[in-house]
């Protein structure tokens, strides 16, 4: 199985340890993992602003970088959603369609493709609040959203339950958006920040020591809010927890 690793731009620049953990975790399963060196971004900042034409060259670059792999794995629900659902600024050739279909978020890849049943190297003896990124939750179906009538499921929680010592705590508003929203966080900062403060308060009230998520972007925003408020919450990506990070 040939797997390409896509490291989102903000993970590359601000959370390199998330990329490293993802790479190490994938290698634990004896996969042939390639990091295409010319990769940059999925184009989401442009398309989310309505500027699809301006995203076309970035999308084309993405397809050139990631063609020919069985799976493209990215530690971000938001970027996986962008590629699968919104990468439409370029003509939809068979190559483009193949890359889009084969792009999976890390949790999906572990849960649905590898069907991992144990992470024997992982132990995380903390109270954890899980943050569902909205694109991961409602866009690519990481879990059952609270608005819909149906059986409960959660792929990230399925995986976290296999981590020794990890105790999950329950939020009052489990899948309320944290207010990051990509460019929204700077387009409407007052609302974005208020949503972030409320989310941080919910984590704290639930007794969480760590917030875990598949999306570093939401956590960068929430961490910025928590630090400004002086709330001592810690944030860690699910790739790091599953890879055996101790804190």
């Amino acid at each position, binding site marked *: 199985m040939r797997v390409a690793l896509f*490291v989102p*731009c*903000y993970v*590359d*620049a*601000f959370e*390199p340890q998330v*990329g490293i953990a993802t790479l190490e975790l994938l290698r634990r399963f004896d996969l042939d993992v390639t*990091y295409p*060196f*010319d*990769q940059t*971004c999925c*184009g989401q*900042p442009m398309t*989310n*602003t*309505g*500027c*699809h*034409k*301006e995203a076309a060259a970035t999308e084309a*670059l993405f397809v*050139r970088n990631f063609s020919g792999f069985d799976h493209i794995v990215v530690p971000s629900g938001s970027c996986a959603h962008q590629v699968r659902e919104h990468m439409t600024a370029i003509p939809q050739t068979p190559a483009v369609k193949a890359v889009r279909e084969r792009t999976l978020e890390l949790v999906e890849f572990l849960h649905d493709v590898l069907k991992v049943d144990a992470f024997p190297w992982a132990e995380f003896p903390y109270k954890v609040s899980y943050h569902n990124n*909205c694109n991961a939750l*409602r*866009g690519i179906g990481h879990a059952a*959203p609270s*608005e*819909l*009538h*149906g059986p409960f499921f959660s792929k990230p929680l399925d995986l976290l339950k296999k981590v020794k010592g990890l105790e999950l705590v329950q939020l009052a508003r489990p*899948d*309320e*958006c944290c*207010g*990051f*929203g*990509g460019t*929204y966080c*700077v387009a*409407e*900062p*007052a*609302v974005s*920040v208020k*949503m*972030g*403060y409320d989310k941080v*308060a919910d984590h*704290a009230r639930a007794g969480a*020591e760590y917030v875990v998520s598949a999306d570093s972007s939401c956590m960068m925003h929430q961490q*910025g*809010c928590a*630090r*400004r*408020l*002086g*709330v*001592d919450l810690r944030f860690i990506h699910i790739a790091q927890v599953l890879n055996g990070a101790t804190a």
Partner: protein
Amino acid sequence: MTDEPGGLIHPELRSERNESPVGPAGQRLQHAEGTSQPLRSKIRERQPRGAEVNGRRPIDHEAAAARFIAAPEHEKMHDERLWDLRSKRDAQMHAIPEWEELRELASQIKQHTLAHLDEYLEQFEAAAKANGVHVHWATDGAAHNRIVHGILRDHGAKRLIKSKSMLTEECGLRDYMAATGIEVVETDLGERIQQLDDEPPSHVVVPAVHKLRRDVAEVFSRTLGSDPDTDEVPYLAERQREATRPLILSADAGMTGGNFAVAETGSFVVCTNEGNADLSANVPALHIASIGIEKLIPRVEHLGVFIRLLSRSALGSPITQYTSHFRRPREGGEMHVVLVDNGRSARLGMAEFWTSLKCIRCGACMNTCPVFRRSGGLSYGATYAGPIGLILDPTFDKRKYSTLPFASTLNGSCSNVCPVKINIHEQIFAWRRVLAEEHEIPLVKRQMMQAAGAVLSRPALYRAAISTADSALRFLPRFAVYNRWNAWGAGREMPPAPKETFHTWYARTHPAADKGSGDGSA
């Protein structure tokens, strides 16, 4: 942690004797935890007003939302009240095993009706006429107002009592009637509060939900002479009732909207919780109903689907207190139905946006929207606020409402609660593209995205732009910041800058790896 929290932490929210609860590490939680604490405000917080509306100038939702958030008592009350409606809606949903089937059925009935709207409208007209109802057609809001005025004038009416109707808001009926000398009295309590305060409704179902009780006490003391310091609900409701009942009893004409119009019977249904629509329709001998052409459903049996969904989605109650069916004028009375287009048939022709016509105005998308709850309905400066407003308003005026589709995090909760399964958040996303293509987004924003696209499609250029942590901090957060410096930092700390990027780490630790071409020709 900086000392100056950018004005976003409100001292009023902290309890007086440092009773703030303690976080996991023993520190006091300030504003954030304050959301669960009783407010101890020393000063009376004034009700924040909505967005400024200046002709066709784009609405500044962000500024109006910031004002709403700067009024923490109002914002907290608003968020919690609407979240409570969302929670009750969830409870109702869980009590109905076939909930998702109902939504699908409702969606299909609406899509079918809209696809054959011409036929169903003609069927409705014929059936209504056979029932003795006068049917009028209005192409736009102005025509609607002229028709209504004409009917009232012909009857020598001096006072019109009406129940809540978003359509008449859309048409600007109250403003129009003010110039004709005919008095219009709203009979829905929330709508009456808004009328007395000279504000439009802030929500399609609960029009005064952005007001605290004492805001209402202030409005009533100013307009009805009630005690400004008494804000108990029974007292306020009684004052309004005493003031409004005589006006209702001596009115010359009554007006309602219509939640559903049934093509096969020519009848229509009005759902209310206060019974005020029944007073409006039945006390005067003349009843005028204004109904948008998208309110049609084919048959009476289809009502069951929508009635089961409407109030559960809107308020989390199984049904409205009154579900009133109107079919023909009473003995000696007259009934008029005004069928209003006002942009609807044009919207029906929009490939990406026509399904927004399925909307039954339940407001569930507003209740669940985290942005709406924290910014208030009046911050949108439009008849329709919240998620459904973001996709309806630009069909009325692309320039004026060009900013609204950007007042969303695209979280998608709105689409999931929608009882008729409108893909609201996908339409918000699509509107952004349409507005960018038609140059209705700020030029500087577009240029920023052109620059970002140019850098992100050239690996070598991109790597140079973020080669050091400092330059990455300059480029990455700011390529999204198009109009103001430090939009991130006003309420949030910057992320710590790591010593090297993943890319640099990978190159250092994998010396034999293919290093690409740098120009993207993989």
